[in-house]
């Protein structure tokens, strides 16, 4: 193998692909990156057996070849090189990387031992505007669970319901539902939240649309020179629609930015109680009160003006609440709840497309 290309191109490609390669698996070769040179292009791939990223970049290929090298080392070496041409040469099972006066020889492992990168078998395709995709992923993946013993909850459920495409995720304590856009074909799949976050991160500012191809077992994303292929989570998503409260005793509309400040302050006094704060809506005074206590230190009580109908008190986790407030857009938010045990629904006052639900802390 002999390939010549610019440092910038190589460094950028390695940065995208390299972060998937991880030393934390039973299979040592997964910390390597697969490098393939053929017909004027250099193909870099890496996988962690859940996600695979392949980056195809144009390069001057003098001799074809394929090999694997430690991802982290190559990535960091190339990133630190000056902006000159880099020559990759494979000789005697070692990859030499030469750029100007810099020269490295890196030990390799046989590409034959590298896991197969799944081919793209896209039976169906859907195109989503990049901005909308990014926002929908941020809105939902935030609440996906990291508990691998319940795989279904580690993913974002992407499906079509009554002519609209939805993204939904939950960790069993809170749930986020984003209505993305009108869509007519049938879709129902659970995509690992980690995959969606990876895709979001790779999406550049100048990308307008993202094309998603999927079949029963896998999903793939094509962004410029990059292809990301991921497994889908097996299983059926929980029937969550019944959890969204339709009628509630208490409704309060208040300023989002002010509420964020109040919750942050209150959180300081909620450290001992694992972040639980008490929220009380008072319709007579048109106020919402947020209250927290640390028995050793003191207590905190803040009031915020609001348009309130119905009275009630509920205890909830301040971190969950702040996560939620960080995702909702617009000046005002609407909080709805009934009693101490029923789910709390939080939406933007004028945004019907994003619903965030938090389960109360039982006190």
């Amino acid at each position: 193998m002999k390939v010549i290309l610019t440092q910038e191109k190589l460094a950028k490609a390695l940065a995208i692909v390299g972060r998937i390669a991880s030393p934390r698996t039973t299979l040592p070769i997964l910390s390597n990156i697969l490098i393939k040179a053929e017909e004027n292009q250099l193909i870099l791939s890496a996988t962690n057996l859940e996600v695979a990223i392949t980056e195809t970049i144009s390069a001057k290929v003098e001799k074809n070849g394929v090999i694997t090298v430690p991802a982290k080392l190559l990535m960091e070496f190339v990133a630190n090189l000056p902006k000159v041409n880099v020559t990759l040469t494979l000789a005697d099972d070692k990859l030499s990387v030469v750029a100007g006066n810099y020269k490295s020889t890196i030990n390799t492992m046989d590409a034959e031992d590298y896991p197969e990168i799944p081919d793209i078998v896209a039976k169906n395709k859907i195109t989503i505007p990049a901005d909308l995709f990014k926002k929908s992923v941020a809105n939902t993946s935030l609440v996906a669970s990291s508990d691998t013993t319940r795989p279904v909850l580690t993913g974002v459920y992407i499906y079509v319901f009554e002519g609209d495409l939805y993204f939904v995720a939950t960790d069993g304590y809170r749930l986020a539902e984003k209505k993305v856009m009108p869509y007519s074909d049938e879709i129902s799949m659970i995509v690992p939240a980690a995959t969606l976050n990876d895709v979001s991160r790779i999406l550049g500012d100048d990308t307008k649309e993202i094309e998603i191809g999927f079949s029963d077992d896998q999903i793939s994303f094509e962004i410029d020179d990059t292809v990301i292929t991921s497994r889908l989570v097996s299983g059926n998503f929980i029937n969550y629609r019944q959890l969204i409260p339709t009628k509630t005793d208490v409704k309060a509309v208040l300023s989002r930015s002010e509420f964020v400040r109040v919750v942050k302050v209150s959180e300081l006094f909620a450290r001992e109680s694992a972040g639980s704060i008490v929220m009380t809506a008072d319709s007579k005074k048109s106020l919402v009160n947020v209250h927290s206590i640390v028995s050793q230190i003191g207590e905190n009580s803040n009031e915020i003006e609001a348009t309130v109908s119905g009275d009630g008190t509920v205890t909830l986790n301040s971190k969950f609440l702040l996560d939620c407030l960080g995702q909702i857009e617009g000046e005002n938010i609407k909080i709805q709840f009934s009693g101490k045990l029923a789910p709390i629904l939080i939406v933007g006052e004028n945004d019907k497309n994003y619903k965030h639900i938090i389960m109360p802390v039982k006190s």
Partner: protein
Amino acid sequence: MEKEQIGALWQTILNEAELTMPRATFVTWFKPTEVIELDGETLRLAVNNIFAKNQFEKKFDSKIRKIMKDNGFTAPIVEYIIKGKKTTGSEESIKIDGMKAVKNTAKAKSNPTGLNPKYRFDNFVVGGCNDLAHAASQAAAAMPGKKYNPIFIYGNSGLGKTHLIQAIGNEVLEKFPDKSVLYVTAETFGNEYIDFVRFKKDRNFSSKYRGVDVLIIDDIQFIAGKTKTQEEFFNTFNSLHQTDKQIVISADRPPAEIPDLADRLKTRFQMGMTIDVGMPDYETRCAIINTKAQASGIELTPDIVDFLANNIQTNIRELEGALNQILAYCEMRRDTPTMDLAIGLIGNIRNSRPKHITAKQIIDKTANYFDLKADELKSPARNKHITEPRQIAMYLLRSELKMSFPNIARELGRSDHTTAIHSINKMELEIKLDSMRREQISTIRERLYV
């Protein structure tokens, strides 16, 4: 094809695959795989996800088919199916598989007695270590509820307790077809009780247990410490005992030694007959091997019997496992067992886990896993990204090498052994609560033995 035979075929494939590839490759791909079924020449395997499916189709398919060919298949086909796939998959074959699997489990559940008909008195090998238990069990089966009630059989794992108590059940069913028998493990009893209390799911929970003529409870030590379950079991026990229904209980130790068991249960367990099942002596082991081999229709030469009986001394289950491995291998190859073969296979089992790991290896591998240097683990640094790996290393030193706390502290450059105690306790707790931590530690441990 019988389920056991498919299992044996898959075991053969695994054995051969293990020999021809690096251990890490084998562990990553083959270990999480399961056989679904063998349909004529088509073997269906369940794999983890699309990546595993791809890997098998492209890299291992020909290898597996070759092994199958070596074992008498003419044109084997292997299909790879992703585990836990939605049954609404569009491909027809997947649909059928899903439905079949459901049917099979339903069948298994519908066995109302819970007994395995395989366990009978006539295939139980009697020796000096278990003749009393055997005689008492037979007497109880001849006159359920009349002679010894309850019968309490205890002994170490793998010595035939389950065989004996199930044989009582099967014998009773044969002699008195109108009597009802129920066999459950104490764990199942506990779980069903919890379901009953939590979800009011199984409304006839009490009548299910109190309406039988013979109740057989396996591994009673598992209700230790579960107060409410014990209470429920106590009531069930009384209700059965008063109406002269036979109760049979097994445990890994005598009633008095089961910790956290209510005294009233202890005394009740000792009311009838308490007998132990001991380690089998050499003659009994030989007799067991011969009986099992004959049941499979294969004759073993005396030197192989002697070899097995001498090499596996303490546990009948292990003995059976070794024997089954030899028998399955011979059946596959249509071969007769030889001494060389026995040594080859059994030598293999015994050496599967090399024991000589050093403290340095544990520290190095842990550091390596977290992208750190061993020196960083030993350094005074107290950043979280270093302390956590350090605590894991301490835990592994304790669990794998049984090192003393002061030694563990010294290995990691700590002056105070209480640091090690704290770290190990912390990890033990986290392993219970945190699935990520569990996975990390098992991956590191896996690497230690690669």
